[in-house]
């Protein structure tokens, strides 16, 4: 594994577009290829904002600090450019695209990665898709369904994992992928992430979650606790375990102490 970080943020600050209040108040984060980082925090802590800022959601804007991805200034890139550079965000609430099959969607996404005038080989694509679906133990008919249209919560998350498998990102951000999932669906997601990372060990993963339970199935290398827009503690998996016992209360107190100081 390389020592150069794939993602490096410094004092990253952000808010909801055109609103006064900052949600991220200076986040420093370094993720190296192959590492799994978990960011945990209570509701409203800014953890999901971090995911959206990194993916380039137009509803959020950076107010300060920096973010570099693979040596490039991430904040200078458009959403689609970030994706093509290797950033992938699995959505908390994936959007339905009626009339567009998953296969068509992925084909279009891969085509978009090619130079103008270059054509995606459809036979190659078909092979890749089927092979990825087999790896993830999905039925080939799943790819014929319209993207997220009428999907259950679990199916939507499986679709996110499939996209991640086909698009092969350098950094996969899982934005509260575990929310609203029953334990079986959660296991499917976790198995997907683990399978893909085993296959491509250089893939970095940023798990954004409220709950510790996802980390029972995906073993993080680093855990960060974010409260009120700042990372207040970083460490190994033991940080998550302590959260399971004590919740976020002590961090909130810590935070108020820091603010008061």
């Amino acid at each position, binding site marked *: 594994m390389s020592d150069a970080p794939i993602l490096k943020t410094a004092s990253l600050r952000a808010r909801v577009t055109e609103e006064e209040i900052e949600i991220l108040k200076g986040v420093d984060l370094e993720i190296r290829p192959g590492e799994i980082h978990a960011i945990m925090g209570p509701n409203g802590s800014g953890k999901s904002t971090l995911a959206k800022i990194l993916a380039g959601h137009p509803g959020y804007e950076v107010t300060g600090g920096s973010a570099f991805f693979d040596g490039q200034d991430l904040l200078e890139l*458009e959403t689609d450019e970030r994706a093509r550079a290797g950033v992938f965000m699995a959505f908390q609430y994936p*959007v339905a*695209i*009626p*009339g567009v099959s998953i296969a068509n969607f992925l084909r*279009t996404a891969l085509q978009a990665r090619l130079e103008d005038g270059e054509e995606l080989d459809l036979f190659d694509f078909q092979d890749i898709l089927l092979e990825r679906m087999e790896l993830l133990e999905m039925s080939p008919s799943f790819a014929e369904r319209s993207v997220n249209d009428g999907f259950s919560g679990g199916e939507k998350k499986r679709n996110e994992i499939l996209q991640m498998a086909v698009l092969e990102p350098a950094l996969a951000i899982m934005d509260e992928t575990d929310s609203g999932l029953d334990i079986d669906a959660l296991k499917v997601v976790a198995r997907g992430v683990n399978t893909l990372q085993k296959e491509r060990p250089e893939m970095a993963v940023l798990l954004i979650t409220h709950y510790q339970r996802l980390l029972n199935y995906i073993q993080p290398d680093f855990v960060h606790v974010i409260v009120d827009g700042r990372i207040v503690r970083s460490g190994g998996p033991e940080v998550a375990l302590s959260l399971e016992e004590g919740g976020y209360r002590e961090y909130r107190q810590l935070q108020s102490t820091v603010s008061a100081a």
Partner: protein
Amino acid sequence: MSRTSTLQAPAAGPLEGVTATINAAAVERLAAGEPDWLAERRWRAWEAYERTPLPTTRLEEWRYTDLSRRLDLDALSPAARGTRAISRNTWPPELRQAMREDWDAAGHIVEIDGRVVHADLTAEAAAQGVVLASLREAVHAHPDLLREHLAAGAIPPDQGKFSALNAALWTDGTVLFVPRNVTLPLPVRITRWVSDPAAAYFTRTLVIGEDWATLSVVEEILSPHFDEQAFFLSATEVLAGDNSTTHYASVQRMGLGAFHMALYRSLVGRDARTDSLHVTLGASTARLDLNSELAAPGAHSHILGLYFGSEDQHFDHCTSQNHAAPHATSDLLYKGALDDASGSVFRGIIRVSPGAQRTDAYQTNRNLLLSEEASAHALPNLEIEADDVRCSHGATVGQLEEEALFYLQSRGLSRRRAERLVVRGFLQDVLQRRPPGSVTEKVTRAIEEKLRAH
């Protein structure tokens, strides 16, 4: 037959829409040499035309399409080329291409500038008694068929200014007759091309499926762009016998500068099923008056509409599902995307007559606006005079969802590609409700062409 024998009291004031081209002399010329019943039918239609004023925006059905601004009947001259014999090797490449894309058929009709120039039918179909012919030919070869049905039951000439105009001045068209119990395994393809600027075209299509017949018709209308407005008024009558199955599709891909007005009416018999798809992509102004009459118990009508406007195109769809008998069902879905400064109107009504109990009728119109200047008017309506029915209607006018676009962009699609994919899916949803076949592929290609300009 001369006009004076049936002429009624002269109308007061100037006759609206009577021009140097559209006049009694034109009826006279067309009626010359025709059997009496037909000439009489033309004159009756002409009289209805004369006494009917041109629709204005004061009429509900024409509120958003101002003919005084959009249609200049005075500027139109008769189509010239249509009177010339056209040999196959002089057919325009666009027409040949459209036919090549969808060649497989039970029969072909090619209509150029208001005249049928080619008709073929498989020997197998002919042996079963199927008739596919130009109207001009059928007048003499199948007079009884035309006398009974042409401009009679489905689109009688007294139902408005333009049904009268077409019935008075049609130059040619197609008749398809499929006898009882006969199944056509492939569609009949009618390809129409008009090319003279500032010309008026009036043609008709008559489709008759007898009891237990199964048939499919695809009509395609093409033209180049026009500097001076060309006006194409077509009338399609579909008579679906008891227990028959009819698939109909029309694809309008005329050039800008054209005004296409289509009258379509289906009469659906007992336990018969008609499926129709109406695709509007071309012409500067397109108006469709669509009516499906559920005439007998158990009749079923499934109606799909698809439109994609761009530049300053204006599409006006006026639909009605008339439930005249009990236990009939109808389901209409119209979806359209509007780009640039294009606009659309959808006015649909479900009418349920007092005796039409146990009616199931649905009507949905969905519009997707792709630009700030685009507009869509959606006016669904119900008129129910029976008490044991299930009817629903709904309409939406929406824009591209930012969250959906972000989702696609986050997978590497540029904003443009993302928009195109959403529009493609929105419209594909309509085509996916048709059995897979070449017309849907052709429409998909035409949509792609338009999307590339978005």
